[in-house]
């Protein structure tokens, strides 16, 4: 079957081709979306096994919806992020009710955050970020990861999280304040109001 090379074809075109029986198009789309979704879910959940479950369920839902997909109504990437965000939210809420989030689990921060970060290796920085992210309320965590790690625009995050752009800005601002408080040893500043 003639098909635009995977590097050029839009996500929606690949999804439509998949819906028409083109398995290679599905694999192209998978190779594009799955690593991003996994990176996001692993950051938000802090657990690779759970991240795999989320990505697998998200992709299964995409394959099921493929025959009814209408081009132009939504971006495929936005759609899958939305599914993944909701699945992560469910897991974080279940985890919260089990009391698994523990701010004291974060490595003891240095009193001088900037100096400490400067002295860290790249991997240590990523680990420190993960530990700090794990302490954030779920919505702040998701907004911060989508904005500052996945690099999405506020408008797309608003669509993914089904909230307004101002709410996204508020979540990311509060999330960043909370991260700085955790990383600089000012945990008492955290309010931990959710949302």
């Amino acid at each position, binding site marked *: 079957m003639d098909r635009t090379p995977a590097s050029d074809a839009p996500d929606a075109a690949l999804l439509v081709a*998949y*819906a*028409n*029986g*083109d*398995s290679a198009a*599905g*694999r192209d789309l*998978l*190779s594009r979306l*799955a*690593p991003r979704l*996994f*990176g996001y879910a*692993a*950051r938000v959940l802090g657990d*690779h096994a759970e*991240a*795999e479950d989320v*990505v*697998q369920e998200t*992709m*299964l839902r995409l*394959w*099921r919806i*493929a*025959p009814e997909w209408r081009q132009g109504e939504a971006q495929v990437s936005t759609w899958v992020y939305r599914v993944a965000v909701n699945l992560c939210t469910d897991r974080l809420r279940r985890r919260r009710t089990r009391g698994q989030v523990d701010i004291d689990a974060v490595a003891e921060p240095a009193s001088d*955050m*900037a100096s*400490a*970060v*400067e002295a860290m290796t*790249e*991997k240590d*920085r*990523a680990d*420190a*970020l*993960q530990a*700090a992210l794990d302490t954030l309320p779920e919505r702040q965590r998701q907004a911060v990861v989508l904005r*500052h*790690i*996945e*690099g999405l625009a506020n408008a797309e995050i608003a669509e993914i999280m089904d909230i307004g752009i101002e709410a996204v800005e508020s979540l990311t601002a509060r999330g*960043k304040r909370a*991260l*700085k408080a955790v*990383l*600089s040893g000012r945990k008492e500043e955290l309010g931990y109001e959710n949302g």
Partner: protein
Amino acid sequence: MDSDKTDDAALEALFSAGAANPAKPADEFLARLAADADAALPEPPGPARKPSGGSLLGGLSGLFAASGLSGAAALGVWIGFVMPDLVTDVSLLGEETAGISAFLPDADLSVFSE
């Protein structure tokens, strides 16, 4: 305020490190996802299939519908086809014009005469 800006810069450095070191899915996991995609692959659209079942009458009504005949006419043609003797007997009951005049008593049937 300077301290806050410094912390902002440090946080940005952490974000950059996080973005540059994303968690990577295992190859086995990606293979599992690919198998899922293949298993869920929709059937490619093909030519319209003939109905696998259905009665002979159903098939004939479809044929007649395609030719523009009404259901009653289709039934008549069908009876004529399977029971021609019955049709012949009916036609022998009288002249055709007499049969028509019975249904159209006020009509001037002379226009049909040669």
